[in-house]
Each structure stands twice: as C-alpha cells, then as structure tokens.
C-alpha cells in the first residue's frame, strides 16, 4: 500500500510506456518526464512567488497579495497573464538575435539540471554515473546566457550587471563545487542516486544524512550560501541590485522574456536547493526509519519547501553585500573553508564516523570557522561602536 503510493508516478509512467513501441520508449520517457518536471516546478514557481511575497509582506507587517483567488494564491496566474500580454520591447540598438536567445539559453541549462535530481525512490530521469558532474556542467553554462543578456541589451547598467553576475557566479562556483567533494568522497560515487541511498537509514533506525556530521554541517551551509549566490538571491543579489544598477542584466527585457528570466532564477533556486537536499539532507529518505511510510517524493518536496522558506526568510532580512566584499567572502572565507573540509572528511572517514569523529572533527571545523571569520572581518576593522556625547 505504502509502496504503491510511493511508486505511483513511476508505475504510471512505466504503464504508459508499455503501450508504446519499443524503439521510442526511452525518448518518450524523457519527454514525459521533462514535461512532468516542467509542470510541477512551473506550478511550484508560481506558488513560490506568491508565498514569497506573502511571507516577506508578513515579515514587514504588511498583508501581501490577497486579491486574486483564495488568500491571493492565484496571484501568479494574473501575473503570468499580465507578462504574456505585455508588449515585448527590444531596444533599437540591441543585438536582436542574441537578445532573443539569451532567456532561452538561460532556461535550457537550468531545466537540464533537473534531469539528474532524484525526486523520490526510482524517480530520476537520467541515472548517470557522473550525475553530479552533469549538474555542474549544465549549471556552468548559465553564465554565458547572463552575459548574452547583459551584452546584447546595449545598456550600461545591463553590462555592469552582467559583469557582476559572471564574476560572482564564477567565484561562487568554486565553493559550490568544492563543498560537495566531501559527500562524493564519503559516498564514493558521483551518481546522485547512490548518494541518496548512502544516506538512508539502512538497517538502523536513524538516517545518516550528511548534514549530521561536523564537516557535512559546515559544507551544507557553504553549499547553501554558494547556492544563494548562484541564484542571485539576497544578500548576493548584486547583479540585479535595483538600488544601484536598476535591474542589472535583464533591465532591457519586458513581457514574456522578462518572465523567462524570472522563471529561470526560481528554477535555478529550486534545482540548487534540490541538490542541497540530495547531497546533505538525505534526498527522499525519511529521517527515521519508522517514518518510512510517508511517500519518498513527499519527503523530498517537504525538505525542498524548508529550504525555500529559508531562502525567503533570508531575503526578507539582509541588506546586500558590495562587490569586493562578495569576492572577499568567496575567496577568503568560503574557498579556504571548503578546501579545509577535505582533509577533515578524510579524518572523519578514518576515525570511524562515530562519536570519536564528532569529538575530533567538530572542534576543528568550529575553530576554522571562527578563525577564518575573524580574519575576514578583522582586517577591515568592522565592529560595533560606542559613541560619546557633547559635554554640556
């Protein structure tokens, strides 16, 4: 029974494909899966925009959208219709072909990343041996699209935004990738499915999520921060910093193309959160074995939702960093810490992954964090100040 619910989507697809002739089965499976992914995450994108607006509004003591549909939850449909019917303006001096291709070039690699993410037990489109590598390869090509958008608009703000975006994405790619190395080392595989399976409860009752290790905890946050930066989310939303360079690389986009950028940003955010779930939060596995009756895909989306809430919460709180500080943070704090975690993983693996590992590795990671943090902040002498008052 539980099994049937858990595997409902897999069986549906298999049953449908059974009716098709043999040669086109893999292709049809790919197309149907892609369609399902786009549909699910498209809907999720719409709902997330509404939830984000409502949550941030509540954080700011406002009401947020509440007019369209029940509690305003259909607002995204109205927004979608609006952006579809808006005039598509292309600046006269823009490079029209590149300007047209850029949003698509941004969306396609983002969608490709979904191919290797396991959304549930047996629910992965391509179970590649080099799944993680595939993910990073697809993610690496988004920079190009951002460049195309910024350059082709022929707007100084766009160009500045594109330059910022590329510099930022390149810099954060390193900690993004390096923070996952520990997981790969411990699991011994680049396949996302293997990684998730390795984190399951196995024979015991408690799951072995990577986040519940000293290095995994640190790597999880490094990964998450890098994911914030990769997705251009506050506090790393410099490429589109509206108070400085107005809207950055998609300044000259309007109508549906703008919506595509918006969608690509959110899909990118989902996919990097999903990867974080896969690598550190045990993917579709339940935290404890007796909760295993809950469908695996539900676990996955639950964890995804928690991470999305974190994204929204941080966005509602923090101001934006400056470019050089952003770079400093990537190169002087995150990269050294990510590199430092690699030997720690080796140590963790050698001393037996138990409480000994915790006693040994925990303080080392904490010390590295404190020391690097102090080095980053201390050089700029950033501190709270006390003030004097005029006498008399």
């Amino acid at each position: 029974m539980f099994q049937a619910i858990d595997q409902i989507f897999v069986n549906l697809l298999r049953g449908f494909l059974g009716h098709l002739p043999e040669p086109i089965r893999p292709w049809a499976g790919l197309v149907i899966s892609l369609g399902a992914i786009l549909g699910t995450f498209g809907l999720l994108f719409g709902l997330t925009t509404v939830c984000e607006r409502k949550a941030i509004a509540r954080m700011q003591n406002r009401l947020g959208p509440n007019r369209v549909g029940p509690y305003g939850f259909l607002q995204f449909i109205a927004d979608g219709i609006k952006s579809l019917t808006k005039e598509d303006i292309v600046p006269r001096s823009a490079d029209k072909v590149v300007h047209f291709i850029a949003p698509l070039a941004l969306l396609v690699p983002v969608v490709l990343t979904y191919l290797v993410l396991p959304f549930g037990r047996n629910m992965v489109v391509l179970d590649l041996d080099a799944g993680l590598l595939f993910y990073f390869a697809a993610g690496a090509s988004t920079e190009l699209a951002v460049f195309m958008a910024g350059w082709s608009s022929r707007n100084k703000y766009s160009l500045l935004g594109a330059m910022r975006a590329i510099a930022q994405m390149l810099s954060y790619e390193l900690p993004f990738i390096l923070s996952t190395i520990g997981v790969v080392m411990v699991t011994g595989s680049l396949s996302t499915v293997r990684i998730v399976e390795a984190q399951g409860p196995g024979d015991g009752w408690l799951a072995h999520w990577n986040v519940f290790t000293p290095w995994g905890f640190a790597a999880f946050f490094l990964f998450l921060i890098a994911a914030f930066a990769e997705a251009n989310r506050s506090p790393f939303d410099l490429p589109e910093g509206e108070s400085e360079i107005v809207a950055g690389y998609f300044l000259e986009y309007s109508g549906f193309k703008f919506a595509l950028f918006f969608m690509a940003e959110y899909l990118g955010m989902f996919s990097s959160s999903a990867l974080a779930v896969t690598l550190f939060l045990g993917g579709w596995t339940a935290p404890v074995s007796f909760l295993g009756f809950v469908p695996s895909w539900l676990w996955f989306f639950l964890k995804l939702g928690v991470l999305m809430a974190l994204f929204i919460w941080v966005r509602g709180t923090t101001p934006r960093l400056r470019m050089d500080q952003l770079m400093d943070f990537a190169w002087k704090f995150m990269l050294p810490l990510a590199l430092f975690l690699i030997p720690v993983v080796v140590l963790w693996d050698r001393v037996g992954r138990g409480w000994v590992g915790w006693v040994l590795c925990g303080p080392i990671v904490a010390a590295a964090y404190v020391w690097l943090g102090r080095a980053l902040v201390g050089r700029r002498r950033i501190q709270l100040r006390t003030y004097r008052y005029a006498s008399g």
Partner: protein
Amino acid sequence: MSPMIYFLSGVTLASAVAAMTLRNPVHCALALVVTFTGLAGIYLGLGAQFLGLAQVVVYVGAVAILLLFVLLVTRSGEAGDGDRERDRVAERSWWGWLIALLVGAVLAVGAWSAGQLPQRAAPPELPGVRDIGEALMTDFAMPLQVVGLLLTAAMIGGAIIALREDRMRVAAEREGRR
C-alpha cells in the same frame, strides 16, 4: 545513435565556420560556444560521459567566458577599428591557409592510415567515471599531483601579476593626486 552524431557534427561544423566568418567578435565567441557544446554532445553520444561533461565545464563554463571577458576588456572601439584590423589580417591570410592545409593533410593521412591498421577488438565495457577516477588516483597519481601543482603555481603567478599591476596603478594615482 548515428543520426544524432551526424546532426551534432553538422551543428559543430557550421558553428565553427560561423566562428571564423562572423564580423562581430562577440558573435564569433558565441558561435565558438556552440562548437564546444556540439563537441561535448558528440562525446556524450559516443559514451564518453566524463569527457563530454568536462568539455562543457571547462570550455563552455570557463574558456568561453574568459574569451568574452578578454574581448570586452581589450577591445577599444566598435566596428570602425575592427575593419582596419581585418584588412591588415587579410593581407597575411596565406599564413592561415598554409596552416589549414598542413593540418588538413595530417588529418587526412591519419584517417587514411587508421583504415589501414588492423582492427583491434573494442574493449568489453567503456571506462566509466569510476574507472577514470581510480586510474587517476592510482596509476597516474604522480602526474596528477604535478599537473595540479603546476596549475596552482600558474594561478598564484597570475594573481601576483594582476595584484602588482593594480598596486602600481594605485600608487601612480596617489602620486598624481599629490
């Protein structure tokens, strides 16, 4: 699989031609990106997962971006300057033809001789990522370390050069201000 290979080869070749002939350097670079991607697709189609994905990560994700950066940073003007430049290059185009001819000849000879060689049996299974990783960590551990060290040294050297220039400029600016 083979129609896919032909399609990808066609795209790769066409974009390679475009990369050479387009007038706008940024367009050339973007066409080059398509070439890289097509190449990666061919690798993947041939079952070389690691190579294909590494091609995308390295060439599309890094080299192409580097090219574009270089183009933007060094190029001074728009088309006006470029035309004169192109004329100057066109005068010496025979060099290019010569090199192209040589490369083509070598490739032709290679292809012809490959047909002459006795067919070796294909390996029972294509090496996967795991095999590559194991090979790198066991048999080729030393070369990997040396290459890593070399690249690190190069990176540090590059950083130092950039840093020095920057410092010199700051110092010059300070002088100027005084």
